[in-house]
């Protein structure tokens, strides 16, 4: 056949059609989903695959950066070994053999070409047992936090003129900064930054009225809304980001202020560090707030629709916000619906040398707030440098009582009914620093008060004020 004009035209048309079709396919395709993993060992992203309407991830690939792991397929069985921990999976089953016991998890285990795939939602169940520590999964946003790795932040508007918005982070951060008219965007692709108590922060300023936190597809984003051009500058070893209004001259010289697109942020001379008077160099957080219960442990069933474990998380986040706004670095031990044993909670708080540990409980019967310090069990004495686990709190009990008294006084000032008691409540007796438990109940018979933000804030702000007031008296806790 000869290459005639009509044929050439048809060929060109067919090729153009194919290119358009390919372009449509690529442009229309959903972006590849990723799971971002944050850990002390490494921060990394893994591709997710869709199976049976769920997001799946390769378990071996997930664990490889975290430690010594291997896996072996044998027919429909798949055996994974992480250090000494062995897990037996079976293709198509939603149960595995772990720590010598059957463990159920959401979704089914899949075996594809000897590659073991587990649903992302199952990681909250499986990983704490395999890794032997707390794991927090933000399933909706595909972010996984292994250990106490989260970076929290506070935002406050300074009284300078023009006003300056200051973000204080509990660890160094390195976000991508981009601006567009009306907003400045900080994108945290490799930093385990987590949400403040409320995702929307308002500042009562015309120039910088608000900021919002969001997370999705493995990335956390803070968007600062502004009515004027603003720029970001870093200080305090990249733990502080200041958002300032650009002057006309600065606006011309500082590309980040007005240029669209991602630009590197501008480090400046270190500013005064955020208030953190923790004397112990190994201390990462001054306060550890523990949302009690979680996972399979519901705590008290407060009503047909309200579980204690859900209320404690909200209260703990609110308390963190209140403490950090007073310059007290705070870690929320359980920031999701994870299983965490009382021993694990004590180990993390002790390892951090936190000056104070606050366990948060909720109760249907009030009135008000009950504050507990440890009632020590009958236990062995310490042996030389080794402390008895069951009575580890003994030396720090005076600090705990100081904190409890201060919290009690502050709650009374705010007309909240309060009671101080000793209690056989673990892990208070296992903590080596000051440790108190709070049991928050409604002030009357109305149980909905427990979920009311104003009541929660009334309680948590009182607790935070009291802790800030005795801050220096707790620092000496062992």
């Amino acid at each position, binding site marked *: 056949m000869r290459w005639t004009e009509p044929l050439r035209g048809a060929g060109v048309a067919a090729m153009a059609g194919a290119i358009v079709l390919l372009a449509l396919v690529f442009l229309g395709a959903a972006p590849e989903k990723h799971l971002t993993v944050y850990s002390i060992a490494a921060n990394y992203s893994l591709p997710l695959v869709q199976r049976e309407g769920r997001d799946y991830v390769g378990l071996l690939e997930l664990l490889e950066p975290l430690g010594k792991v291997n896996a072996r397929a044998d027919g429909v069985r798949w055996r994974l070994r992480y250090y000494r921990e062995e897990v037996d999976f079976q293709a198509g089953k939603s149960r595995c053999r772990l720590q010598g016991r059957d463990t159920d998890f959401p979704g089914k285990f899949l075996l594809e070409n000897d590659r073991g795939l587990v649903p992302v939602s199952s990681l909250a169940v499986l990983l704490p047992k395999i890794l032997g520590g707390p794991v927090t999964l933000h399933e909706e946003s595909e972010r996984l936090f292994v250990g106490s790795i989260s970076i929290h932040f506070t935002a406050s508007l300074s009284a300078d003129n023009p006003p300056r918005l200051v973000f204080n982070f509990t660890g160094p951060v390195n976000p991508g900064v981009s601006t567009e008219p009306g907003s400045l965007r900080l994108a945290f692709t490799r930093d385990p930054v987590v949400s403040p108590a409320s995702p929307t922060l308002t500042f009562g300023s015309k120039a910088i009225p608000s900021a919002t936190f969001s997370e999705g597809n493995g990335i956390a984003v803070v968007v600062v809304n502004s009515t004027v051009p603003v720029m970001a500058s870093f200080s305090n070893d990249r733990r502080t980001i200041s958002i300032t209004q650009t002057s006309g001259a600065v606006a011309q010289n500082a590309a980040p202020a007005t240029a669209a697109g991602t630009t590197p942020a501008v480090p400046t001379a270190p500013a005064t560090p955020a208030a953190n008077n923790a004397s112990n160099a190994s201390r990462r957080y001054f306060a550890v707030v523990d949302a009690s219960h979680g996972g399979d442990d519901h705590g008290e069933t407060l009503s047909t629709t309200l579980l204690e474990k859900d209320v404690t998380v909200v209260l703990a986040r609110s308390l963190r916000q209140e403490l950090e706004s007073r310059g007290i670095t705070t870690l929320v031990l359980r920031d999701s619906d994870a299983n965490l044993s009382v021993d694990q909670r004590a180990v993390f708080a002790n390892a951090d040398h936190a000056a104070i540990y606050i366990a948060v409980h909720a109760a249907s019967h009030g009135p008000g707030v009950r504050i507990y310090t440890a*009632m020590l069990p009958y236990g062995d004495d310490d042996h030389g440098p080794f402390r008895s686990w069951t009575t580890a709190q003994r030396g720090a009990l005076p600090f705990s009582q100081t904190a409890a008294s201060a919290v009690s006084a502050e709650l009374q000032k705010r007309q909240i009914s309060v009671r101080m008691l*000793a209690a*056989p409540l673990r892990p208070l007796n296992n903590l080596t620093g000051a440790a108190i438990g709070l049991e928050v109940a409604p002030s009357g018979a109305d149980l909905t008060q427990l979920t009311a933000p104003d009541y929660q804030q009334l309680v948590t702000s009182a607790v935070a004020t009291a802790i800030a007031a005795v801050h220096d008296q707790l620092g000496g806790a062992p």
Partner: protein
Amino acid sequence: MRVAPEIPRQFLISLAVLVVALAGMSMYAWRMRKAVVGTPAAANDTRPLAPPVAGPTERVVLFVAHDEDGSLRGESAQIPMPSGRQQRAEELLRALLSIYLDKSSPHPLGAGAEVRSVFLVDPGVAVIDLNSAFADTHRSGVLVEELTIASLIHTVSVNTPDIMKVRILVDGKERDTLAGHADLSSFYEVSAVNQLAVQLQAAQ
């Protein structure tokens, strides 16, 4: 012709006595069997045993939890008390539970809650063994669980001298918590519980 030898008379008498004895034992065994068959109904009854109605009574102090104000109140009671130290401790707790299981209970426990036994081991150790219904139906909460623990231990220790530490088991086994909060994994120091009881009595 051969004549069959005659059966000795004494042999016949012995045989008759044996047959009568066998019949008597059969009847006795039949009656015993009926009695045993009737027993399980009583064993499955999970209601607490009432204190014995017979025997000498004694005035004791029971420390009763009150949910309305979260207090522990000493209440005098006249109850029949056996002479054995261990049995006395059991009767004390059964009397206490009969208050908690009453319709007008100031601190309700779940149906079937029972103290299985109390063991006193020298020197100064008491072990209170609760049944699973006690723990499984107990309400969850720091204060409500603490009130129960303090009530049990303080009642036993005040009325039984020389007890220094108390362990609480459920169905004879160790358990982490009573209902999610109060620790059951260790021995309670009686002096610490006494201090707690003072705090709880101050709430009145």
